[in-house]
């Protein structure tokens, strides 16, 4: 298959996705839309984590911190000044945030930008660390961000968090950014820079010996990853309409990490699939703990049962699919048609198939 043809197919697929997004946005109920939105946001978050962890081999557990930066930036910039005045009851919001109101897209991009700037500042010193040590240090930074958010009520409203954030996030935004993230990360890793990132993952000493500047490439990957984590955080804030520091504990990072590993470390396709599966699972397990009646039998509400089931499911998947659902396999049109032709070959049809 030629490159031109593949590009055409991708273009068609994009249009189909747009149509589906249109239909979903207009005809699905809010509950289902919310799940889809979460799935798309997790795809953005997961693919960005996969860039630094899966492709560059740098164990980063700082995603929640970058998300928090993006979420607070976005929320503070899109909330109408009047709302802010009502929300900030402990201490008034500082100038100029208290009078500022910006369009959603600008706020989102600024959220990503701040996260990216922080990533450069953090990345320069800590990306020298390796393996688990890097993981712990980045987790530490994310927790510090959270604790600071808790302690500066004049900016974040402290532990009370922000409420009444305008809900601008819809499927167009979340799908749009998911597609953009996939596009940029995919293009990056298949470029010469991407090969350099993977060289770092495979063997740092060898990579450096053939002229790969470790600091530059690691910090670059970390920064791009943080940028999209910030965007993801902003989208999430405007989807949920309320945020507080507790939402950005390291559990949040773990959720994204689960998506990446279950999908298959180093597979963008896997991450996207796992992002939606993760949210479908969490939501559709909800009835389990809400209590239900079966004829005369009525099961009472059991809080916690949903997460118990979820964690068991997670354990089963990781125990039986140790390399994640997709391993390192990536979606390609070639593979897609090979996959289809397998079905054809199975059908008892003369002159068809392989």
């Amino acid at each position, binding site marked *: 298959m030629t490159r031109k043809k593949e590009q055409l197919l991708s273009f068609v697929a994009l249009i189909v996705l747009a149509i589906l997004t249109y239909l979903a946005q207009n005809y699905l109920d809010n509950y289902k839309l919310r799940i889809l939105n979460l799935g798309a946001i997790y795809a953005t978050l997961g693919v960005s984590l996969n860039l630094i962890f899966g492709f560059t081999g740098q164990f980063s557990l700082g995603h929640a911190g970058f998300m928090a930066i993006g979420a607070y930036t976005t929320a503070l910039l899109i909330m109408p000044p009047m709302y802010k005045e009502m929300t900030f009851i402990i201490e008034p919001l500082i100038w100029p945030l208290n009078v500022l109101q910006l369009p959603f897209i600008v706020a989102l991009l600024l959220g990503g930008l701040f996260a990216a700037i922080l990533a450069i500042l953090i990345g320069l010193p800590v990306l020298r*660390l390796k393996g688990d*040590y890097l993981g712990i240090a980045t987790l*530490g930074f994310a927790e510090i961000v959270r604790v600071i958010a*808790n302690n500066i009520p004049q900016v974040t409203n402290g532990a009370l968090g922000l409420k009444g954030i305008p809900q601008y996030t819809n499927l167009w935004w979340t799908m749009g950014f998911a597609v953009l993230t996939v596009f940029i990360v995919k293009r990056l890793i298949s470029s010469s820079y991407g090969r350099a990132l993977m060289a770092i993952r495979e063997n740092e000493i060898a990579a450096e010996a053939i002229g790969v500047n470790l600091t530059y490439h690691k910090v670059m990957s970390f920064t791009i990853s943080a940028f999209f984590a910030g965007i993801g955080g902003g989208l999430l804030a405007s989807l949920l309409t309320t945020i507080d520091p507790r939402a950005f504990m390291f559990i949040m990072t773990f959720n994204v990490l689960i998506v990446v590993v279950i999908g298959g*470390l180093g597979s963008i396709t896997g991450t996207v699939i796992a992002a939606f599966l993760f949210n479908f699972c969490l939501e559709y397990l909800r009835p389990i703990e809400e209590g239900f009646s079966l004829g005369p039998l009525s099961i009472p509400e059991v809080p*916690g049962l949903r997460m118990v089931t979820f964690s*068991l499911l997670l354990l089963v998947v990781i125990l039986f699919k140790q390399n994640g659902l997709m391993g390192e396999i990536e979606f390609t049109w070639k593979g897609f048609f090979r996959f289809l032709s397998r079905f054809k070959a199975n059908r008892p049809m003369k002159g068809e198939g392989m």
Partner: protein
Amino acid sequence: MSLSIFLQNIANGLSLGSLYALIAIGYTMVYGILRLINFAHGDIFMLSTYFVFYGILIFSLPWWLSFIIAIILTAFTGMLTERIAYRPLRKAPKISLLISAIGVSFFLENAGVVVFSGIPKSFARPELFDTMLIFKDIRISTINIVSFIISIIFLMALLYIVYKTKTGLAMRAISVDVETSKLMAIDVNKTISITFGIGSALAAVGGVLWALKYPQIFPFMGIIPGLKAFIAAVVGGIGNIPGAMLGGFILGLTEIMLVGFMPELSGYRDAFAFLILILILLFKPDGLLGKNVQEKV
């Protein structure tokens, strides 16, 4: 700050530090042997407090007996998690093992919510621990002294096991090289099981003492102490047992001192631990007592 308050803070810091040390051991031992950050360890710690709680409340056992039973039960739970969730993944990518640990952590926390309910329970403190020792104007609660002494006893026992017994030798051998240890006829599975047992038992000691000190228990109570103890293990040099103890005491003392000297910063208490961690990692990446292992080129 007067001298008496200073000394009180020291006592407080030492007792908190000893608890961190007890929990940190489990992290450091498991990391030493499996290179796994066992994120479920904090939840094992949480379980122990519920074991004591139910021992006293439901089975009306005397407190000391339910302490002992809780420690044993916790040790077995720790071994069970290893058997079910970690052993099958021994040859898997390390990150899958970590995800499994996160899965176990989620499971224990939420099973806690299901079984014990999410509402915090008050832990009945035996009267013995409710008194204050008063020397002149220094007031130190008994629990601080007791927890420090008990911790030291258990830590000494641990050092004895690890450095003076055959099992300890096997543990140290495995942490250096699993394959060679097998060739030396070391039963790797058994030794790893014992490691989890010991680590969990010490976490249970920490848990019981913790509940005596802060008598309120809830299913998510293990997260923050677990994280702090983990930091302690890294600060001391992960994989290094005396390091974990040292790290625990350093963390406990600095935390209490920070709050004592600069109460206006007490909101930053949790961030402070991480700041120490990051500074240590940047300037001495293998921790205070860790060995510097550089990749040979």
